[in-house]
Every structure is written in structure tokens, then in C-alpha cells.
């Protein structure tokens, strides 16, 4: 059974210029523990699709199954990371990570132990009593990753999580994310506008195009894991990158002609 099954999904918004179609006829199945990246230019509906999967917004039309059942309201089986870490400034690193467990009413001692494990896992051991303003952007984003994982969700939704970071931190966090995903498998849906990042991380890259937002092509990434930075320079990687670039810039029909 697919973890997430999407069929004929539409999303339209009311705007001052009438109704805008954010997503049109989107169909996609995501397997358990698959790492899927959604890539495309702004306005292609990738973030809208992510919000729909998180049940933060409702589809205008179409089917969205989560573990085989229709998704009507947010589920605690999902963890979310945004472009901004949006940590609570008045809480320490540890208390920020614990926020979801307080809201869900989980066991305090177990949660605390798990939080400390996660903080150590992302390399922030010793920083648990610090406040967000004392941390760099990359460290804050690591904290927000811990916060998304604390209640052990089976699905991790990431909305351009490394886009606000500098290139080196971005690469470092990408590899760290894959290391964590390797030890603690989850279904990851990762939105980015960076094609290299999309290929390097994913089992499958979903390339999307704007006006209206739709899926242009799905590319299976057949690269060995663990992934390394050198793979970027292989012929295979370049061919994936070329395929994706082509559909994004010239539309789904381009490569067929």
C-alpha cells in the first residue's frame, strides 16, 4: 500500500483577479519510507502540494489518501520543517524541541530523553540550554528538524528547509538529513527550487511547472546510497539534471519532440 496516494488533485484560490488555479490534475503515489523531492520554479504549486499533504489546506477537488484513508484533518503522524526555523525565542533549544510533545500530551520523561538523543544526533549536544538568538541559522534549522522528529512521525514534510542558508551549510545539512533518514527511515517529502539538491537527496524527483501548477515529469534517481558530493559530477547525475531542467524550462512536451 502507498503511504500517500494523490489522484486528480485540484486547488484553486480566490484572489483579487478572480480564481487562480494553484494545482491542476495532480496525481502522485508515494511509497513508505521513500524520499521524494518536489522541484520547480516559484508558482508551480510545490508548497501548495506540501500543505495539502499536511492537511493545512483543503483540496478543491480530488483524492488524497494517507495510509489508505482520506485525509480530512491534520494528523500527528506528520512532522513539518519550514524555510524559517520559527523557533520560540523565549524557549531554550530543548524546550523548543519539546513543544509538540506538550501539545500532544506525551510522556514527559520519555520525550525529554528522545529530545536529548535527537539534539545529539544533529550535533547540537551541549547547546540544549541555549536560546535561539544565540544560534546560527544552520543550528536553528537543526533544532527545527529535531522539533519535527520529536513525536516520531512517519512522514516528514520539508518546505525549502535549507533555502535561507548559505551554500556550504546547505550541503552539510542535506547530507546530515540523509544520514538521519538512513538510521531512522521515514517518508520524506522535500520541496526545493534547487535542482542539484533535489537530485542529490531523492529516490524520486517530481518536477513541476507553473500556471497552472502541475507535475511535468517524475524522474527515478538511480544513484547508490549513501550519496556523496562527487556524484554531482557523474554523467548520470548530469543527465538527470538535464532532463529536469528541460521539462521545467520548456514544459513536459519538450523532450519528446
Amino acid at each position, binding site marked *: 500500500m502507498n503511504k500517500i496516494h494523490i489522484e486528480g488533485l485540484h486547488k484553486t484560490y480566490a484572489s483579487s483577479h478572480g480564481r487562480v488555479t494553484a494545482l491542476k490534475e495532480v496525481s502522485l503515489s508515494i511509497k513508505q519510507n521513500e524520499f521524494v523531492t518536489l522541484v520547480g520554479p516559484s508558482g508551480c504549486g510545490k508548497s501548495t502540494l506540501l*500543505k495539502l499533504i*499536511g*492537511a*493545512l489546506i483543503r483540496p478543491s477537488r480530488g483524492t488524497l489518501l494517507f495510509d489508505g484513508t482520506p485525509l480530512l*484533518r*491534520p494528523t*500527528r503522524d*506528520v512532522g*513539518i520543517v*519550514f*524555510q*524559517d526555523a*520559527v523557533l*520560540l*525565542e*523565549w524557549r531554550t533549544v530543548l524546550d523548543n524541541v519539546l*513543544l*509538540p510533545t*506538550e*501539545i*500532544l500530551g506525551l510522556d514527559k520523561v520519555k520525550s525529554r530523553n528522545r529530545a536529548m538523543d535527537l539534539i545529539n544526533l544533529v550535533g547540537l549536544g551541549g547547546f540544549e540550554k541555549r*536560546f535561539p*538568538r544565540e544560534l546560527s541559522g544552520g543550528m536553528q534549522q537543526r533544532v527545527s528538524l529535531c522539533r519535527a522528529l520529536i*513525536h516520531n512521525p512517519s512522514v516528514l514534510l520539508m*518546505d525549502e528547509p535549507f533555502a535561507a542558508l548559505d551554500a556550504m551549510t546547505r550541503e552539510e545539512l542535506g547530507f546530515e538529513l540523509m544520514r538521519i533518514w538512513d538510521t531512522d527511515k521515514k517518508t520524506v517529502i522535500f520541496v526545493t527550487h534547487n535542482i542539484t539538491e533535489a537530485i542529490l537527496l531523492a529516490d524520486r524527483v517530481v518536477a513541476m511547472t507553473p500556471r497552472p501548477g502541475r507535475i511535468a515529469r517524475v524522474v527515478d534517481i538511480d544513484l547508490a546510497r549513501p550519496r556523496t558530493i562527487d556524484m554531482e559530477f557523474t554523467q548520470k547525475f548530469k543527465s538527470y539534471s538535464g532532463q529536469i531542467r528541460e521539462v521545467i524550462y520548456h514544459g513536459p512536451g519538450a523532450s519528446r519532440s
Partner: protein
Amino acid sequence: MTTEPHAASLLQDDESLEPADSTLKAILGATITLIALTIVWEFLVRQFQVPAWLLPSPSLIGQSMVEWRSELIGHSMVTLYETLVGFALAIAISIPLAVAVVYSSLLQNTIYPILLALQSMPKVAIAPLLALWIGFGTLPKIVVVFLVCFFPIIVATASGLAAVPAPLMDLIRSLSASSLQTFVKIRFPTAMPHIFVGLKIAITFAVIGAVIGEFVGSESGLGYLILVSTSQSRTPLAFGALVLLTIMSIVLYYGIALIERILVPWAPRN
């Protein structure tokens, strides 16, 4: 070798930029300037033999403050009481009302726009009417203080409660948090620094409100004392009352700032 002295002076420049150091320098500088201005004032008044009823010298003001200390203290207490009660009343009413406005779209579309429109009305201009309606006791002064404090606090609180970043709201919704959880854990702490901005504006208005209330009609308070002593040409005493009002205003402002540092240590400092 020749670059060494240059490097050392650069380091000193760097150190002078440290915030604690620059604050100290600003305080020291302001104090010295104040003392210098007072001396110039004293000198000019003596030099040109300005009559005391027109512009008293600082030393004469000090003298009369000592002479009239029990009156000054008594009237200060009245003004302080009116200020604090009005201010507390404004906090007690405007913060819950701001919460209600943020949570109720009905209030947001009915009462709140009217409140915002009323904000531009000069509240102190109601003082004579208040005297007409509720007399010349301390109550009408408390009402004036309440009115001038009410608006900055409610506006700051309402905008603070609405200042939660959209992704954070998404995160909270994805966890199906209750309204109470969202308020206690997210909204109210987010609003705290905003509320204190409102409180600091309000407390400076509060003292002004109390004095205006006293000007309109009263038998006590520093505003009353200024009015009476000016009309009797006791200008040094009027100046003494003015000095106390200024001190009261400054102390109250920094009192609020101190409470803010304790309750909201994460607030941006200026």
C-alpha cells in the same frame, strides 16, 4: 612592525562599540551636560538679575523645594496615585479586551474600528466634561489617565497577539493544538514584547493625563500646585513641582522597562 600601533588603536575602537560601555558613556555625557546647563542657567539669572517670579535660579528652586517639602510630597502622592490607578485600570481592561477582539471576528468588525477611530480624539479635551459629570475629586483624573493609557495598550496587545509568524501557526495547526494551548504557549508570549511597547508609551501619557485632569479643576496634586503657585507668583515652587513630575515620569518609565527585562528577557533592546 610599523603596523602594530595601528592595530592596537583599531582594537580600542572595537572595544568602545560594546553596548554596556556605550550606555555608560551616554549616561555620563548626559549628566555632565545637565550639570553644565544648570550652572549656565544659575549664572545667567544672577548676571542679568532676572526676577524670581519670572525665572527662578536653580538654587532658588532647590531652596523652595526643601522649604515646601511636605506639601510637595503630599501633592506628589496624589498625582502618583491617580497615575498608577488609572494605568492599572487601563491594563486590566484593555488587555482582556484586546484578546477578545483578536479572537472574535464580530468584535473585530464592530467595536474595534470604532476604538481605532476614537484613538485620534484628543482624550485630554474630555477632562472638562468629566469634571462636569463626576466632579473635582480624584476619580475624574483617574478616568483621564485611564483614557490616555487605554488606546496604546489595546492597540499594542491586539497587534502583538496577531504577530505570530504564519509558518508557526501552520506548525501548531498540524499538531491539532487547542485554542487555549495556542494562546498560552504561542500567542501571548509572542505578544509580550509588543504589550510592553504599549505600556511604555502609556505610562508617559499617564502622568500627562493626571496633570491635565488636575489643571481642569482640583484641590490637590502637582498639577494643582503648579496652577496655584503660578497664579500667586510662587514660580520657584511651580518649578519644584515640575522637577518632581519629570522625575516621577522617568522613574515610572524605567520601572516598566525593568519589569520588561525580568518578564520578557527575549525582547529586543534599544
